[in-house]
């Protein structure tokens, strides 16, 4: 049953395979780590010169680049030489546990020479909420008003009108049509009112009764019955008029509502035009946002990218049961996890020492518990790093990624003090030159996410600031805005800002204050205020011209209809009142006549006796 010859050949083959593995294992391991890393991050993960020593239980590489999935021409971070000291025994259970990791030179947001986009199937990232937070901040930036005064005089009103898709003309036109239709209904209603002929007929009936000629009680009784009929008829006609009057009141209120609606439509269209034209509101709060929010949002965006990667990976691992991947890569399948009786996670770096450079300051620190399942070890992932330079500049970095509870929590913070701002550049400023020649600054901030709640705060203050005024302004700024920039840059050598922002589902708040807002405000007012107000007036006039004719037409139509109907109704009421009074008078006279006849007959009978 056992082939003895085969044992020898097997031994030879095994030696050959071991030699090949020894030669190529590092290459295979490097490819495997890049594949797994890419699946986690959603962008390229590239290792250089991976070196695995099984018997010494060490793993090292010369360089690691992790591309930014949101900007694949930059890295989220890259490392220099890195060495991990692993525990050997867990490797036999396919568990990767490193007690210690040493990273030389950790750098953030470095540029790449090749694109970091993954070819083929991208990693699935389920952090839609974090993407929506990022999108909300992008929208915030887009909503910032344009402060390009040079453009205000060339405002393309027609273009803005086309883009706005104004509703004024159409809506007021349809209101006019509604009122016209109601006029038709009204005229029908007014047609039901008693006309002059009927009133005259009733009057003639009343006048036809000649009291003096009525000698017979029967005749008086007949006349009385006629008057009663007339009175009932008048009552029913009055009821018709009263109901018509009530309806008229309702119709007048409705018509007045149309007027208010038309005016509101005009206001809304005007605001829509303002949004498109992005004419600036000139308030200190807005000025601070325009000055500094792009810089703040850029930092928030970067923090959210890191949080997004951690959270999306944690979400995938936390799922209660293994959901079937409907379309895994060919020949790779899906790994199903089972409980580990030794309570070891699949991957765990217990302690890592890192060093990096922030703002020219060497920073050293520790990252603890980079792990696939925090709940197994009962500890969150933390980052603590700090550095101080001889000139007093200092940096403190803090991070927490806590997925121990059902609600995920992340917090990233940084504090930089007394750092040189030589060459510092603001992101897309409008009122300030973008680059500083010199200055001393301190800045810091914290980004925190707990479940769906996002909050961030940041502050910056700089002293002894000198702006680089030699840099040419971009072409579309115009002389007026360039003048505003220079005026602000020269008027102060220290400024700061503070920003607070919060978001929970749809609720979003963002506020900024800056001590430079008043300075900027005055500079803008001197230069741009008139231009801005002129542009507003142009837009307002244009809207009213579009709507004006129709609005007047609507107003006149409503007033005329209401007026005509009121006149008709009051005329009817008056006539009916008169007829009613005449009929009542006639009835009274008939009763008196009857009484008089009765007395006469009694006297005549008495006389005969």
């Amino acid at each position, binding site marked *: *049953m*056992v*082939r003895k*010859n*085969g*044992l*020898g*050949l*097997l031994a030879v*083959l095994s030696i050959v*395979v071991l030699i090949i593995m020894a030669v190529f294992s590092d290459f295979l391991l490097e490819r495997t780590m890049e594949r797994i890393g890419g699946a986690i991050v959603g962008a390229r993960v590239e290792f250089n010169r991976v070196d695995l020593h099984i018997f010494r239980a060490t793993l090292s590489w010369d360089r690691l680049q992790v591309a930014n999935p949101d900007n694949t021409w930059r890295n989220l971070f890259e490392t220099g030489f890195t060495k991990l000291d692993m525990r050997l025994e867990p490797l*036999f*259970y*396919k*568990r990767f546990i490193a007690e210690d990791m040493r990273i030389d030179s950790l750098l953030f947001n470095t540029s790449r020479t090749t694109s970091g986009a993954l070819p083929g199937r991208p990693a699935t990232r389920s952090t839609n909420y974090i993407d929506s937070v990022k999108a909300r901040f992008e929208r915030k930036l887009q909503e910032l008003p344009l402060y390009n005064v040079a453009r205000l005089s060339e405002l393309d009103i027609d273009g803005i009108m086309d883009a706005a898709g104004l509703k004024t003309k159409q809506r007021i036109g349809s209101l006019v049509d509604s009122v016209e239709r109601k006029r038709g209904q009204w005229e029908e209603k007014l047609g039901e009112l008693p006309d002059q002929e009927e009133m005259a007929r009733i009057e003639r009936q009343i006048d036809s009764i000649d009291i003096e000629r009525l000698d017979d009680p029967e005749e008086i009784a007949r006349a009385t019955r006629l008057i009663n009929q007339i009175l009932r008829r008048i009552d029913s006609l009055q009821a018709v008029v009263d109901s018509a009057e009530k309806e008229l009141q309702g119709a007048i209120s409705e018509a007045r509502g149309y007027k208010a609606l038309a005016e509101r439509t005009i206001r809304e269209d005007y605001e829509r035009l303002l949004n498109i034209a992005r004419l600036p509101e000139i308030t200190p709060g807005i000025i601070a946002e325009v000055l500094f929010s792009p810089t703040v949002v850029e930092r928030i965006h970067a923090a959210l990218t890191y949080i997004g990667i951690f959270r999306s990976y944690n979400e995938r691992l936390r799922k209660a*049961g*293994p959901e*079937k991947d409907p379309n*895994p890569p*060919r*020949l*790779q*399948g*899906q*790994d*199903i*996890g*089972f*409980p*580990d*009786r*030794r309570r070891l996670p699949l991957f765990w770096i217990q302690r890592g020492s890192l060093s990096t450079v922030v703002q020219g300051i060497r920073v050293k620190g520790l990252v603890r518990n980079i792990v696939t399942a925090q709940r197994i070890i009962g500890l969150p992932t933390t980052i603590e790093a700090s550095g101080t330079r001889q000139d007093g500049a200092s940096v403190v970095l803090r991070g927490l990624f806590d997925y121990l509870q059902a609600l995920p929590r992340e917090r990233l913070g940084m504090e930089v003090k007394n750092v040189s701002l030589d060459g510092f550049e603001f992101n897309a400023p409008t009122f300030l030159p973008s680059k500083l020649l010199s200055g001393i600054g301190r800045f810091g901030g914290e980004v925190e996410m707990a479940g769906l709640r996002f909050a961030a705060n940041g502050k910056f203050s700089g002293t002894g600031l000198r702006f680089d005024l030699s840099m040419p302004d971009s072409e579309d700024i115009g002389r007026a805005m360039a003048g505003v920039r220079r005026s602000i840059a020269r008027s102060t050598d220290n400024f700061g800002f503070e920003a607070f922002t919060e978001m929970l589902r749809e609720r979003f708040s963002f506020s900024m204050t800056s001590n430079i807002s008043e300075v900027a405000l005055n500079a803008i007012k001197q230069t741009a205020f008139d231009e801005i107000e002129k542009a507003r007036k142009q837009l307002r006039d244009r809207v009213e011209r579009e709507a004006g004719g129709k609005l007047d037409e609507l107003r006149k139509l409503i007033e005329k209809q209401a007026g005509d109907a009121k006149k008709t109704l009051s005329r009817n009421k008056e006539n009916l009142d008169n007829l009613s009074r005449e009929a009542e008078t006639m009835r009274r006279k008939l009763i008196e006549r009857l009484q008089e006849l009765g007395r006469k007959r009694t006297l005549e009978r008495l006389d005969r006796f």
Partner: protein
Amino acid sequence: MMFAVVILARIFNILRSAASPGQIAGGFVIGMTAGLNPSLVISFLAIIILFVVDVNLAAGLLAIALFGLIAYLPDPLFHSLGYFLLAGLPPLEPLWTSLYNVPFIPLTNFNNTVVMGSFASALLLLPPVYFATKRITSIYRRRYDARVRDSKIARFIRSTIVYSWYIRIKEIGDRLW
């Protein structure tokens, strides 16, 4: 040079040995198991069995090559079967958990859906493929072997220099062993 020839002769000897229909079928199904499975560890174990057990090595190597080429095609089926076995059958979970906690076993990637699915498929196919291969081998030897030996293709192959070298090495092997 002589050493290399001796090694080659030994290899051919082994390849030609164990030539009964049952041994050929046995080698073929073991090769099928290795060829279908993407796990290097399981494939390597199957190859060890091929060398150690007295089955036809050539048939095994042929099966590895053949099924290795077509394993890509039923991959979604292996994934579904593997997922069903690993996650869809609660009574089996204690077994998988125990295996997961045995040293070296996790290195086989048995908890991967395609590895489990292809292994299970190979086990399911083992009896029919074994008996079919055995039957086909017997029928071939009885009815077609002589015809194939006398065919134009066979005569052409026998006229090539590669074949003449094969014959020389075979004779060396026969003399040595």
